[in-house]
């Protein structure tokens, strides 16, 4: 691996999507857990635990998409036009979820709130699932023609391995959301979340084990680089330890550390994905010679350089004020008149 601009942007796009998973991951997880809540008061607490931050978290996806468009336009064009229906579904899921948060509290009627509760939960689960399926397809490889265009169909995207990754992503986000919820709630709801979190952890650990096995058996190119460079196994090890540390911290009631471990799990998973994917942006299966790489899919060096300056100025500022905002909203949720 040589550190040229293309590789740096490969990493930066990965960082943006990892940021999205760590932040919007708990929003989507809270949305999925919303299904299990029963009382209006509980639902409001759940919604308001993510209330101030969900909008900002979704911006990571928007910026990740923008960065992909700018840095690797060919990969963006091939994947987005190839995954047309799946992405339109993702958009509808995200729209419903977003407006459900905004609209739910505006009217007190039971049917009104019920409708948006369903929209919020279904939108969250579907978003997580589709994001996972998309990741699964990219990991497994998709058919690409010699012209660089997607050569499959909507249903060819729904094969077992991508679907497995979709379910694993739902599990991961539910666990992440439940742990986040623990930090934000108190009393009865907190106790409920503790039970759900335990189930979610088990759900995720099982999914993660199956996914790991399936990847090693059926997607061998996703383990190739680590096989060639054994020292990279340390990242796989770190991933295992991060996963193992979640129930440990959870058991001791150290929710913040459990949350950090969950973040570390995502970070190491994305790192493993990126390391084995590199230098492919979109791996072509069955014809690897048609793959889109970080070179044949990239923008010009001039643009990658200009954008590195933009990112260099923008990203530290974003990180600084995002941290401040999370700090301001730390602690347990209180529902009041301005709340959702």
């Amino acid at each position: 691996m040589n550190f040229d601009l293309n590789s740096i942007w490969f990493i930066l796009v990965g960082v943006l999507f990892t940021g999205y998973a760590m932040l919007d991951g708990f929003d989507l997880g809270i949305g999925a857990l919303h299904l299990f809540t029963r009382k209006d008061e509980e639902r409001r607490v759940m919604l308001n635990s993510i209330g101030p931050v969900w909008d900002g978290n979704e911006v990571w996806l928007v910026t990740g998409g923008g960065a992909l468009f700018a840095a690797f336009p060919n990969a963006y064009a091939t994947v987005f036009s190839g995954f047309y229906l799946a992405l339109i579904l993702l958009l509808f899921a995200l729209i419903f979820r977003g407006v459900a948060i905004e609209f739910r509290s505006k009217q007190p009627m039971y049917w009104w709130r019920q409708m948006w509760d369903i929209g919020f939960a279904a939108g969250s689960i579907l978003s997580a699932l589709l994001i996972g399926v998309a990741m699964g397809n990219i990991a497994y490889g998709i058919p690409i023609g010699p012209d660089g265009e997607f050569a499959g169909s909507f249903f060819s995207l729904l094969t077992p391995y991508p679907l497995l990754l979709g379910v694993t992503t739902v599990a991961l986000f539910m666990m992440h959301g439940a742990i986040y919820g623990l930090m934000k709630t108190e009393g009865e709801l907190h106790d409920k979340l503790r039970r759900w979190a335990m189930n979610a952890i088990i759900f995720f650990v099982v999914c993660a084990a199956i996914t790991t096995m399936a990847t090693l058996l059926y997607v061998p190119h996703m383990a190739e680089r680590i096989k060639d460079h054994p020292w990279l196994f340390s990242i796989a090890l770190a991933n295992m330890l991060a996963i193992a540390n979640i129930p440990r911290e959870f058991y001791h009631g150290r929710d913040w550390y459990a949350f950090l471990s969950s973040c570390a799990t995502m970070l190491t998973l994305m790192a493993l994905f990126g390391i084995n994917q590199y230098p492919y942006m979109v791996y072509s299966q069955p014809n690897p010679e048609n793959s889109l790489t970080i070179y044949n899919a990239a923008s010009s060096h001039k643009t990658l350089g200009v954008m590195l300056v933009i990112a260099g100025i923008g990203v530290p500022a974003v990180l600084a004020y995002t941290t401040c905002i999370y700090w301001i909203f730390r602690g347990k949720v209180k529902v009041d008149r301005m709340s959702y």
Partner: protein
Amino acid sequence: MDVLTLSRIQFGLTIGFHYIYPPLSIGLGVMLVIMEACWLKTNNAVYHQMAKFWTNVFALTFALGVATGIVMEFEFGTNWATYSRFVGDVFGSALAAEGIFAFFLESGFLAILLFGWDKVSRKVHFFSTCMVCLGAHFSAVWITVANSWMQTPAGYHLVGAGMHQRAEITDFWAMVFSPSSGDRLFHTLCGAWQAGAFLVVSVSAYYLLTKKHQEFARRSLRIGLSVALIASLLQGVSGHLSGQEVARYQPAKLAAFEGLYTTESNAPLTLFGYVDEQDHKVIGVEAPDLLSFLAHDDFHSTVTGLDAFPPEDRPPVEASFLFFHGMVGIGCLLILIAAAGTWFAWRKVLHQKRWMLWILVFSVLGPEIANQLGWFAAEVGRQPWIVYGLMRTPAGLSAVVKANTVLTSLVLFTLIYFLLLALFIYLLNHKIQHGPHDDDLVPAGKLALPGPLSHGHKKSAS
């Protein structure tokens, strides 16, 4: 219908629906900054009440703006993949800059604006409001830069050939300051300020008419009318500048706007009328020589007509003409309305002029419609090009997407967007009927005023 028509309808529908919200966010952002500044300066709790009420409306428009905005970013790739490959190097970087500089700023500080009233001090809250407003403006900057490059490409060179040809940046700043970007940004922002200001004006006039929340309404109206008048007058200036820029860099578009089929000197300006596309003429009321003057500052100058372009390079004339004239007509009307409203308010007789208040109530539709028509005119007038002079619209389509796939998504978008629009209007109306909250006259928590002052205002409020 073919993929091209369906994709164009879908993009038009989704961008048109999206563009209801960002101008309101930008305009309301400015109004919020002014209201909170007044509160900080005067300590009058009515301004706190105003800021809080309009923050709620802002949140509604912002949420819909975000939800419908993600669609736009995805659609470049889903429906216009070949276009995305062609412009990614140029357009993509402006879009990424928008994400990093604008969206994070806006959505991050919105958290404090909405939910931080009693968590931070007044000054920090005011700072957050300013950042949200700035973020909204930045997003207008970058998206207008990207769109202006599609109108007047600059700072690039073409690399490769045939299907693999694309534009690459040679000079980033030349791309950012393409010939039209400055004028068009100014024009877009004025339209957004008008949208925000007239919304405040409309709601306040409604309260005055129904004799509700009088103190709140009077002060809101004063701020709203001032911004509306300034923005409308600036919009006149900016419209003229934009027109001259179009005359210089996109003459075919100007000719379509004005229905000018033949190149001529002393070209007349059609004030009202319609285009007879069959006979290549415009029927209506004309002001002699005025178009020549407006386009080139000289009554005798020559204005390029559509005959200077081969038929396959001409935009649709009738639609461009109607959209453009509709926009200009509404723009002029808004100047009159804002001026009349300000005049009556100045003479302190506005509350007696019920007819004027009714006009003000409906004035909110003006900027909304004009903003839509303006974008239609700008985009339709650029046809048949997706990137002016470089790439034709049909060439930008995704290669692998089929017509019935687009039809499916188009039907779904139409259903969902009409539902969202209905809900938006319903909730906006609900908020307006509900009005400002009296509790907000007594700021609580960290925002509470120092003892004696807050006491005084509690009295005056009750």
